[in-house]
């Protein structure tokens, strides 16, 4: 006897993990299993790499062998292209995990003399699938057939038949297509793909190249229509997910020291919340890096690992400068508790940069992250971009319960400059540093502009960076005590 099922039962759409960093998160588990996914975009946008990663990860990690039908490059060329990513296609082929079939359809060697169909292609594909018991198939780029054969009406109906053929065999397939002028693909392949369409884009604005991925359509799955930045590097593609986390990360009441006892004092005597984000802004030479170094040092002293992203100074320079103000970071680098990563933001573009940061964080799994300064990131891109990218990074850090400190250089005479304002809303704590010229006396001042969820001092303090470290003093003639 069958039980009556409650009407709320929804069939869960089966999905196949791609193994592509971040993509499985934004798609809620990968591509639709047993269906055809269209991957479109202009030349050089990363389609082939995406498709190859889908197959290699499928074969290596998920036990699903795959067939790569390549309409553009020969097997050898393709193998050479992906070898740089550590994919050993010949080895995978020998183990019957992956099979590359090069299909040539060049017009000059084909004359058309009457009715025909693409049964030859079906037979080849069927043969390849059978040979390695494939579960995944890539057709890259099937649109090449249109340049090789004249009868486009016949081709289109045959492609429709091919996609059904794939689905009948429950193969999870990725079909690539070149972007057209006003259409997703030059030959309208999107008309035949009902389940999932992903578009890749490679834009250059202000000399900074950024790659983006958009899920145009994904039947039966909730997906954001946002564009997700992605990066191609030595480890392949990684998509930076917009946090669909909707601020649900757990918060802790645990506190961590700022590394400066007096500053801890201003923050209810305990310092920052673990997992919170801290912005330190100030004009040049006000001691932002010193504050960051003190915080990093305190983390290491607790035995926690710290990642320090240096965008302006080289690590030796930072170490030397900090030694001069009594902060010895070198012992922590020797113990490998403190790791520096120095890079120039402009070299990879903002998205690439933040993706790189994220990957390094994922690898090192630190408890504390320092970005010094974010100003350089801001300078490479518009304010809006920075904000959305930083939001993703910060959300990620929060989920991982990593406490982060970002320094930001504000220019003198422009205290509320846009970039600071744009990113400050993302920060839990905002510490402002500034120069003060009271009469002939030149001092540095520090105050806590905001710190969410705690009673904090609102007073200004004099920041004294001396040979013995950082101290805070009451501002002479200042307003009150704390």
């Amino acid at each position: 006897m069958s039980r009556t099922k409650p009407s709320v039962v929804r069939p869960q759409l089966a999905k196949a993990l791609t193994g592509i960093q971040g993509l499985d998160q934004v798609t809620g588990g990968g591509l639709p299993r047993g269906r055809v996914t269209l991957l479109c975009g202009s030349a050089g946008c990363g389609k082939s790499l995406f498709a190859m990663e889908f197959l290699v990860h499928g074969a290596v990690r998920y036990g699903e062998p795959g067939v790569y039908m390549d309409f553009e490059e020969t097997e050898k060329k393709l193998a050479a292209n992906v070898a740089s990513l550590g994919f050993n296609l010949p080895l995978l082929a020998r183990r019957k995990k992956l099979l590359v079939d090069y299909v040539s359809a060049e017009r000059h060697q084909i004359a058309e003399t009457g009715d025909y169909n693409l049964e030859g292609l079906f037979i080849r594909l069927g043969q390849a699938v059978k040979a390695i018991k494939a579960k995944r198939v890539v057709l890259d780029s099937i649109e090449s057939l249109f340049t090789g054969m004249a009868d486009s009406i016949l081709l289109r109906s045959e492609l429709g038949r091919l996609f059904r053929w794939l689905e009948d065999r429950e193969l999870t397939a990725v079909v690539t297509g070149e972007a057209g002028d006003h259409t997703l693909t030059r030959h309208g392949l999107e008309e035949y793909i009902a389940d999932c369409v992903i578009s890749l884009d490679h834009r250059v604005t202000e000399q900074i190249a950024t790659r983006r991925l958009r899920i145009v359509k994904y039947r039966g799955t909730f997906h954001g229509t946002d564009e997700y930045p992605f990066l191609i590097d030595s480890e392949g593609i990684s998509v930076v997910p917009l946090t669909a986390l909707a601020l649900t990360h757990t918060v802790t009441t645990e506190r961590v020291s700022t590394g400066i006892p007096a500053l801890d004092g201003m923050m209810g005597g305990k310092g920052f919340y673990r997992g919170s984000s801290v912005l330190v802004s100030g004009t040049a030479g006000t001691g932002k890096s010193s504050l960051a170094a003190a915080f990093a040092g305190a983390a290491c002293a607790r035995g926690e690992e710290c990642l320090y992203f240096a965008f302006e100074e080289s690590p030796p320079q930072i170490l030397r400068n900090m030694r001069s103000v009594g902060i010895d970071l070198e012992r922590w680098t020797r113990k490998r508790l403190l790791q520096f990563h120095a890079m120039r933001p402009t070299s990879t573009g903002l998205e690439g940069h933040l993706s790189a940061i994220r990957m390094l964080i994922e690898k090192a799994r630190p408890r504390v992250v320092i970005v010094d300064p974010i100003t350089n990131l801001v300078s490479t891109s518009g304010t809006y971009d920075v904000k959305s990218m930083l939001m993703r990074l910060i959300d990620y850090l929060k989920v991982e319960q990593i406490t982060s400190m970002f320094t930001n250089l504000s220019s003198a005479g422009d205290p509320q400059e846009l970039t600071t304002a744009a990113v400050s809303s993302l920060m839990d704590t905002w510490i402002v540093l500034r120069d003060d010229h009271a009469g002939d006396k030149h001092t540095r001042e520090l105050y806590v502009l905001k710190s969410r969820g705690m009673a904090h001092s609102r007073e200004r303090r004099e920041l004294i960076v001396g040979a013995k470290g950082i101290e805070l003093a009451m501002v002479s003639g200042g307003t009150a005590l704390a």
Partner: protein
Amino acid sequence: MKKIPAKKRRPAKTSGSDFYRLRLYIAGQTPNSIAAIANLKTLCEESLKGRYRIEVVDLLEKPQLAKGDQIIAIPTLVRRLPPPVKSIIGNLSRTDRVLVGLDLRPAR
């Protein structure tokens, strides 16, 4: 099922610059395949009498042969001799195009 090579080894001669070795790929006995075989026989008898050999390959029986000659469409006729290797797709009903494709008649 055994495929009958249509005209097998008519003359003793099997090579030479004017000898044609043709291979026709089909997939089962579809109307298009049958038409292609018939069209090819007629055409060869008219234009290549005594200096050709036809081999019919049914990919339903020998699917592994599809890759070697880069077969996508069915039917496909491959001219293996004389060089260079050429491919002609379709049921060979347009004789003029087949003749041009086989270099038996100059292209316009």
